[in-house]
């Protein structure tokens, strides 16, 4: 009983009464899943409905930022300029929304549609263009894509899809680094 090497019955009972389980914060589960996805240990869902709902607002707000940057600044070294009036409309619409999420989301959807239309037009032009022009067009499209992913990652750092896009773009950039001196940079 008084052997300091041994627990007394009361001590034993007290230790046995301590809980063996405790639930962590619910957010940890998504954090762990996202960490596994970033490491390629779980696939990144591209069309899961609940995931899309969860990421809806960051995606749309990010799309607004990227699309505005794309259209206001113009892109592809002037190969496609038809969207400037549309860009102005999107910009004024977002400014008029005064931060209302629903309105910004609606503008983001329109901007996203314009973005896709612009890339489609760019693709058509590229079909008949020479190699340097096609390279410029491709760089414009990828830069816009990266800008959108970067905005999403800024607004939702745990978003696995944005992380995967940025990782892929980063790997692509690293692979192209030796030729960077000749790469066309499209700034917007």
């Amino acid at each position, binding site marked *: *009983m*008084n*052997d*300091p*090497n041994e*627990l*007394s019955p*009361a*001590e034993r*009972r*007290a*230790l046995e*009464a*301590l*809980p*063996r*389980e*405790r*639930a*962590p*914060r619910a957010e*940890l*589960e998504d*954090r*762990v*899943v996202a*960490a*596994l996805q970033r*490491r390629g*240990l*779980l*696939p990144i*869902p591209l069309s899961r409905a609940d995931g899309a709902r969860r990421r809806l607002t960051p995606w749309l707000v990010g799309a607004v930022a990227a699309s505005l940057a794309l259209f206001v600044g113009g892109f592809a070294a002037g190969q496609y300029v038809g969207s400037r009036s549309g860009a102005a409309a999107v910009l004024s619409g977002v400014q008029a929304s005064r931060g209302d999420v629903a309105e910004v989301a609606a503008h983001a959807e329109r901007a996203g549609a314009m973005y896709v239309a612009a890339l489609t037009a760019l693709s058509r032009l590229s079909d008949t263009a020479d190699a340097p022009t096609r390279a410029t067009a491709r760089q414009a499209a990828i830069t816009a894509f990266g800008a959108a992913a970067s905005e999403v990652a800024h607004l939702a750092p745990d978003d696995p899809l944005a992380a995967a896009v940025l990782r892929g773009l980063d790997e692509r950039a690293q692979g192209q680094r030796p030729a960077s001196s000749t790469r066309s940079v499209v700034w917007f």
Partner: protein
Amino acid sequence: MNAGVVADRQGEPDRDLAVRVLAGDEPAFRQLYQRHTPRLFQLALRLVGGDTADAEDVVQDTWIKATEKLDTFRWESAFGTWLGAIGINVARETQRRHGRRREVEWSDAAEPPAAAPLERLEPVDLERAIAALPDGYRTVLVLHDIEGYTHEEIGAQLGVAAGTTKSQLFWARRAVRALLAPEAKGRLT
């Protein structure tokens, strides 16, 4: 007994879920996570001395390592036991990384009570006393007196001799008793 074919209390056996996880099934992973994380989190929380953020990091890193090694797990022990062993190693890495030394004031020369009057002890006081222990003492006490590991198992897990863990347990219990003594409890916050 092959732990992998024993159906868990929640239904689908761990081994079946693991096969699905290896095939990239996220819902299967979430089921496995929800089944085993409460125990892992509690263990991690005690091993890191009660720091919730550290314990969450331990849980995350443990699941990453477990998922990376899942295809090599031989299912000769229960999945939860294997996961816990990984968690212990991750928690020790966290302890080392932080260089934490939760030294507490008690005198080895003074004779603490052989057994503190624990009948009326609040669990929160006991938890605080355990959290206040130096990392090495705390690890051995948690694994032996709470988790039920033998000295041989602890020695194998920590890479030390069983005699070393016995010695550490002796001093850990002595320190807890000293911390729970009425005159010392005010230092537990």
